[in-house]
């Protein structure tokens, strides 16, 4: 009896061993790109990998804007069984790297010359102690303003280029009976608008010291107070149903001609395209007031985990190489509505908004206006970001004076650093 059990166990172990070698060359990829255009974009990568003879094991965890996926990832890594790659971005890459679970992909980066293709600001986020541990996938620009030209015409208002002009236009639009700003009152959307204002009011240098370096002195400075005041001044120009509204519903207000403007990253373009709207005719995308010289970026990336099996290592490196290949960069970013993260890609397949974005991306990479977005987890640690979110959303939704908000912001950030 015992002998039989023994035999079965041995047999199972052998089968398991074979199974393990049979799936070599497999990449298991954790991501949360599960909705329409995003899912199609990921499938491009799957197809390209399969063409090279590797297998793709999808590990998609939807929901919670990635929070659920992160929980799944943590339990996998803690139990010593990480996937091949996972969708992780910004400073969190450093946190994972510190645990010593990521694999060094410098050889792929050198062979492909990534350091020359990717702006240094972006490359630094992907590196841990000077070594590449993550592959950037795409770039979204945050500081866009989406406008409905019809409403501007009816209200006799001009597209604003400065914050002073902005409030002049808002007043005219309000008097014409439209909602000036389509707003979604969720903390991340409030922070998105707020960081756009900080970048506009203070310029790239101020943005760098406040929302990237989280310097307490700068956070409590008069410039921050001014940014807070402008942020609060927008509130009367939004409708009162804004609290809790999803961003795409706010975009729909601009599409339907109920509201004149929305501040949102370039994923809003997908909503316009889905509604059959054409840029330049039915809607216009402008950089937010005073922020022409700033490009707030949100770069998605995959971190690569240490894998033991040599075949799987090969597949992992192939995946890293393919993500940065021009074919994938074009295919992926056209379906997702973002722009390629690397230079040297033809603008032809992209639309007008994306082309404008690509030009600004290259220009700001040279003149120092390229900045990571705080609201979209690119700039500061989750703890500091959370502290900033709390102050900003509480300030916007209460009658706190701007000076107090700036002071509280500095204090909360200091607390979060400890």
């Amino acid at each position, binding site marked *: 009896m015992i002998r039989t059990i023994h035999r079965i166990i041995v047999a199972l172990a052998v089968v398991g061993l074979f199974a393990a070698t049979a799936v070599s060359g497999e990449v298991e990829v954790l991501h949360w790109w599960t909705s329409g255009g995003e899912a199609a974009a990921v499938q491009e990568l799957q197809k390209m990998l399969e063409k090279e003879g590797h297998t793709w094991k999808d590990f998609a965890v939807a929901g919670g804007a990635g929070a659920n996926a992160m929980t799944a990832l943590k339990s996998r890594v803690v139990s010593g069984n990480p996937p091949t790659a996972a969708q992780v971005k910004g400073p969190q890459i450093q946190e994972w790297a510190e645990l010593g679970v990521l694999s060094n992909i410098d050889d792929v980066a050198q062979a492909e010359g990534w350091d020359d293709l990717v702006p240094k600001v972006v490359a630094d986020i992907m590196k841990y102690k000077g070594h590449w541990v993550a592959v950037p996938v795409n770039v979204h620009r945050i500081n866009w303003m989406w406008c409905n030209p019809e409403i501007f015409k009816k209200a006799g208002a001009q597209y604003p280029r400065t914050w002073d002009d902005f409030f002049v236009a808002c007043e005219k639009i309000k008097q014409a009976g439209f909602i000036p700003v389509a707003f979604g009152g969720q903390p991340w959307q409030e922070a998105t608008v707020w960081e756009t204002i900080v970048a506009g009011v203070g310029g790239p240098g101020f943005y760098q010291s406040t929302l990237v370096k989280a310097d307490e002195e700068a956070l409590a400075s008069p410039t921050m107070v001014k940014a807070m005041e402008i942020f609060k001044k927008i509130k009367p120009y939004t409708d009162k149903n804004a*609290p809790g509204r999803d961003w795409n519903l706010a975009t729909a207000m601009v599409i339907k001609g109920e509201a004149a403007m929305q501040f949102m990253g370039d994923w809003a373009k997908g909503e316009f395209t889905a509604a059959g709207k054409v840029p330049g005719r039915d809607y216009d995308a402008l950089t937010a007031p005073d922020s022409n010289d700033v490009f707030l970026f949100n770069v998605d990336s995959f971190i690569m985990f240490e894998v033991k099996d040599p075949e799987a290592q090969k597949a992992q490196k192939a995946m890293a190489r393919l993500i940065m290949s021009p074919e994938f960069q074009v295919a992926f970013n056209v379906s997702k509505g973002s722009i390629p993260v690397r230079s040297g890609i033809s603008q032809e397949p992209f639309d007008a908004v994306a082309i404008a974005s690509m030009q600004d991306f290259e220009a700001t990479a040279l003149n120092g206006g390229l900045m990571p977005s705080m609201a979209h987890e690119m700039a500061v640690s989750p703890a500091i970001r959370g502290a900033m979110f709390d102050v900003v959303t509480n300030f916007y939704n209460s009658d706190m004076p701007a000076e107090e908000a700036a002071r509280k912001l500095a204090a909360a950030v200091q607390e979060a650093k400890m």
Partner: protein
Amino acid sequence: MKSAERSINRLAVLETALPRIVVAPSFVAMVVFIYGFILWTLYISMTKSSFLPSYDFVGLTNYFKLWRIDRWWVAVRNLLVYGGLFIFGCTLLGLFLAIFLDQKIRIEGALRTIYLYPLALSFVVTGTAWKWILNPGLGIERLVRQWGWSTFTFDWLVTSEMAIYCVVIAAVWQSSGFVMAMFLAGLRGIDDAVIKAAQVDGASLPRIYRKIIIPSLRPVFFSTVIILTHIAIKSFDLVVVLTRGGPGYASDLPATFMYSYAFTRGQLAMGAASAMMMFFMVMAVIVPYLYSELRRKRYA
């Protein structure tokens, strides 16, 4: 002969041990997965854990930090408002519904089902429905304005100071039917003879209720308060769906606070500290109450 005796003996031993053997696995599971993890959470709350657990002991630092955070104060204050009104509202409404249903009325069965039905819904469904009902642009406010009362406003859901009361409304709507069922069962358990005797003595109906029936429902109040207290303290899904803790974090509760710190901000230790505070709150309410109630029973 001897062996038969022994086997009977063995059987007797087995018979006494069997209940314990059967219960043992679930007991072990409970000790590990409930009490074990409470202790583990307590330990994590006194460490430096960030986005993964770590075991560097830092004492009570996280608790001091927690009580310095504005948002935590808001969450605790909201819990007091929400918990108090929720327990009070559900008990009162449930008791009234039960008393009215107990008047030997027609179609009682159908009415009972109608009142009890909200309990069959999850808080997520309740939250979504009430989100639409209370939204000024979709629900009551719009409806009343369309009827012609154009200055009517009911915008609690989007007002920072009032949002938590919207959560109370939805929660009371959901749970008072359940409380009604408990009280109804209690009312049915009261001996008719007592009531008849009181009626013979000439007591009025309100007086009978006040002096005889409601006091004899004491054990039902006891279970109601305990059940509602823990529902209130662990409330999470309703707030997430109804207000997402907003506007801002005005309607945050300790449970949503804990979730956001532990799972979205990578501050596991702070999340654990807030979870332990919630645990202490439950203990602070339940232990004295249990103690006084159980002691009363023993000496009664």
